[in-house]
């Protein structure tokens, strides 16, 4: 069945942070010209070369499910959204660097996506490949992306970058700077692109190659997070690679 071959990655975040633009950039290497509100869920497909450059290179389709809405939505909307959270292989959390609240809400988003107990009604939609184990030990690779970096003034940049350090409490993020309006930031060879493809490789690995193995290991905090900063629309300034800052937390 086709559903067994799917690699599903959720893209979560508050409304207006730039998830749709991000997904469009990742999948079609083009800037989204007219972003509008996402109602429900919009899906796009990225063609990804697993283990690029090695003899084991193989092409996979990665589905990016961009779920719209806010954390404070009505419980009926949350129940409807929950149908998209089945059998997820990876999650990308998107937050807006110019909006503090969107970073704080990421925690609630992670609870909503990973903790199925929060589904208010008793209706459980069972597909063939719904796997409870996947959620129990939280082996899902996570990625955090901060958008609209170019809207933050140079002097405040350090303060903003360290602000999201709270996300580093439980896991070790790496941070990358990208530009949503300039596809060159994801060009092959740049460190952003490398980190992004490492994330997707990890997703594919966990999906296909480690499935038989470590399912029963219960290590609650085993999340790896890569962080990609994406500046947003207005200024078409290009940042040289020299302004990249990576904060490593070991």
């Amino acid at each position, binding site marked *: 069945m086709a559903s067994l071959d799917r690699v599903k990655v959720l893209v979560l975040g508050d409304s207006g942070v730039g998830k749709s633009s991000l997904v469009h950039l990742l999948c079609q290497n083009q800037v989204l010209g007219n972003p509008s509100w996402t109602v429900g869920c919009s899906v796009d*497909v990225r063609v990804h070369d697993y283990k690029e450059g090695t003899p084991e290179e193989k092409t996979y389709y990665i589905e990016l499910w961009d779920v719209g809405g806010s954390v404070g939505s009505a419980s*009926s909307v949350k129940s409807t959204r929950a*149908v998209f959270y089945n059998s997820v292989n990876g999650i990308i959390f998107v937050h807006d660097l110019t909006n503090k*609240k969107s970073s704080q809400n990421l925690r609630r988003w992670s609870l909503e996506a990973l903790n199925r107990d929060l589904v208010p009604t008793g209706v459980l939609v069972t597909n063939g490949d719904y796997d409870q184990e996947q959620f129990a030990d939280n082996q899902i690779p996570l990625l955090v992306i901060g958008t609209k970096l170019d809207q933050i003034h140079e002097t405040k940049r350090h303060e903003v970058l360290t602000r999201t350090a709270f996300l580093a409490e439980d896991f070790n993020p790496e941070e990358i700077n990208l530009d949503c309006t300039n596809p060159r930031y994801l060009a092959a060879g740049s460190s952003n692109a490398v980190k992004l493809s490492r994330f997707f490789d990890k997703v594919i690995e966990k999906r296909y190659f480690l499935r038989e193995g470590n399912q029963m290991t219960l290590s609650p905090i085993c999340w790896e997070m890569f962080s990609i900063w994406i500046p947003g629309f207005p200024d078409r300034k290009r940042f040289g690679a020299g302004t990249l800052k990576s904060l490593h937390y070991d």
Partner: protein
Amino acid sequence: MSFLIDSSIMITSQILFFGFGWLFFMRQLFKDYEIRQYVVQVIFSVTFAFSCTMFELIIFEILGVLNSSSRYFHWKMNLCVILLILVFMVPFYIGYFIVSNIRLLHKQRLLFSCLLWLTFMYFFWKLGDPFPILSPKHEQLISRVGVIGVTLMALLSGFGAVNCPYTYMSYFLRNVTDTDILALERRLLQTMDMIISKKKRMAMARRTMFQKGEVHNKPSGFWGMIKSVTTSASGSENLTLIQQEVDALEELSRQLFLETADLYATKERIEYSKTFKGKYFNFLGYFFSIYCVWKIFMATINIVFDRVGKTDPVTRGIEITVNYLGIQFDVKFWSQHISFILVGIIIVTSIRGLLITLTKFFYAISSSKSSNVIVLLLAQIMGMYFVSSVLLIRMSMPLEYRTIITEVLGELQFNFYHRWFDVIFLVSALSSILFLYLAHKQAPEKQMAP
């Protein structure tokens, strides 16, 4: 001396109201956004503070607190400030923030916001022409603000009067079973799967085209057209076809999502109606529907027979008890307390109702870009609403307390406002009934469709 004490009491209470407005803004309205322009928060809290002060002055009037002359002074001052805010400051800032959002006009923000404000003033003035308004300058502003505010109040009351029993009563709840929801969810996921498979085809086609070095976009220019005739551009043609199919499917998925959310909401309401609280609200719903029908009836009678109630409910109630039921009590004492309680309840419920409605409205339509503009619009609506409540509340107070309002607001045609309220209330209630009927009818038909 007493004037100073009175003023200090007033100012303290104003500061309290300002603080409350500030907290409400921060905790409720803007809880999902980051506040970057503190001007907006200040304006909102100031509008709220001065509107509440007006209500406070009415209460003081009834209770006889504070010196009469200082009350009058504070009334006048309060009214001037509120009018200043509602007519000058808030519209100007609305224009300013709208212009700030438009990138092109960034340089001449001030100029364009002044232009916008002048346009607003023009229409605001034009608004007063068809209505009977007296000549003295002072009333021009109040009467226009009053007209807009009364219209808003009547619209909200009409819709609320009809919507309240509709939401409370379980009679109108459609029957939703779990299988319905499951079926819809399955359809939704199937649609998503179809979208995904089509997008996979598109992505692969794009990739092969890219690898072969073909042109992605539509060929443009003279030579491009010639080229497209000879070479097979079947790749891009296929893509546009598939893209159209994908667009249609995405529209379908959005519809299904909204329907599913609707079903979940109905299911929750059904469960809620089985609880104790739900049953209580159901009973209230029947009560309110009778009240609503009565109000529509009274509004029609008022318009048809062209009459405006002369006495307020308090005095009429007392008359009835004294004359018909034969209970003797100290009229003056009780009328004061009862009217205080009645007016207090009206004020509190209208403030609370308005704040809740504003919050819901704000959550529904705001985004991170437009939040400032929307909050200011809400502040404007709130100010106008409260000013016109003062106008209309006059009718609920016994004669001796009405004088202060009549004095302060001048020779306004109060009867006109009540008539206008009745007309708009009737229109709003009837159209809400029509609207809800259509919406109710349409929904079960959607579920019948396979």
